[in-house]
């Protein structure tokens, strides 16, 4: 089957029910997307399909119906996404394992809700677990990113 990931078209020979997560990591070698739980309980595997966040461990390859973006496609070191910039500004990441999922969820959330309040940020991000407990910085970075995106 054909998959478009980060702007590139790929032909992959996989079973229809293989989770997108494993297609990305094992077939295409795109390892920025992380495996945490495999049952949509942690958010580490979050990517975008046509700009909307999705838990890639839950999405079967055969059900992918749009362009896939992982954090490598969200921004580049020379042209960071506003959420990535804010993450650096607030020094959010500790161990970093959950952070690609956090950033992808945050970027999708800000697309839907450009001026979120604290409660909405907490609701949107509570499905992304962080064992280092960086939650206060995540919330602060999302507010900064929202301001930047509003001004853009």
């Amino acid at each position: 089957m054909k998959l478009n990931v980060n702007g590139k078209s790929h032909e992959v020979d996989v079973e229809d029910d293989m989770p997108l997560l494993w297609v990305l990591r094992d077939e295409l070698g795109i390892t920025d997307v992380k495996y945490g739980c495999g049952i949509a309980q942690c958010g580490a595997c979050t990517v975008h399909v046509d700009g909307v966040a999705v838990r890639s461990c839950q999405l079967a390859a055969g059900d992918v119906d749009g362009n896939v973006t992982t954090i490598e496609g969200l921004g580049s070191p020379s042209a960071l996404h506003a959420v990535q910039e804010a993450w650096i500004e607030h020094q959010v990441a500790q161990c970093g394992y959950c952070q690609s999922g956090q950033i992808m969820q945050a970027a999708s959330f800000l697309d839907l809700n450009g001026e979120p309040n604290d409660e909405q940020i907490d609701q949107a991000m509570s499905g992304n677990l962080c064992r280092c407990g960086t939650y206060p910085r995540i919330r602060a970075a999302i507010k900064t990113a929202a301001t930047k995106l509003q001004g853009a």
Partner: protein
Amino acid sequence: MRRLALALTLILPAGVQAQDAGSSAWDRIYAVASHPRCTNCHVGESGRPAWDDLGYAKDSVHGMNIVAGESRIGAESIPCRVCHISAEGANNVPHAAPQIDEAWRLPPVELAWRGKSSVEVCQQLRHPEANDGFDMAELAEHVRTSAFVNYGFKPGAGRNAAPGTTEELAEDLEIWAAAGTPCVGD
């Protein structure tokens, strides 16, 4: 018991028989409507789905601070479909997010059933303005064709299922409708 039923059939007027059949059908409908597999999403204005009867504490709300909001699809924070994929799935992995070939969402708020009595749900379901605009024939058809209703009876992976089948529920709705949608206290 069957002899008694037969005797009653012979001596009771047809209207009374239909009324009794309708009331019995309603009891079976309410057994479905009050089952946690249904009431976990048929919640009120809080927009917070429940996780009752899933092995967590009594009166549990959906983990991960999930709120579907006024939109009922989580548009204000995190859309339900981020985890509940809109495609038919085997749903054979315990504790994973169930998925169906429809956008996962909460039913309209006027269809809030969680914590409500049989009479309250009965009054809601027989009025189109409180049941999402369905007449009884449409409601039976909805039950037969809705991916959500079907999921409630076949949730997979050892999850508790609503009692009966979609067809039995649709037939009970038709019996209840034919009897004039009786509710206790009419």
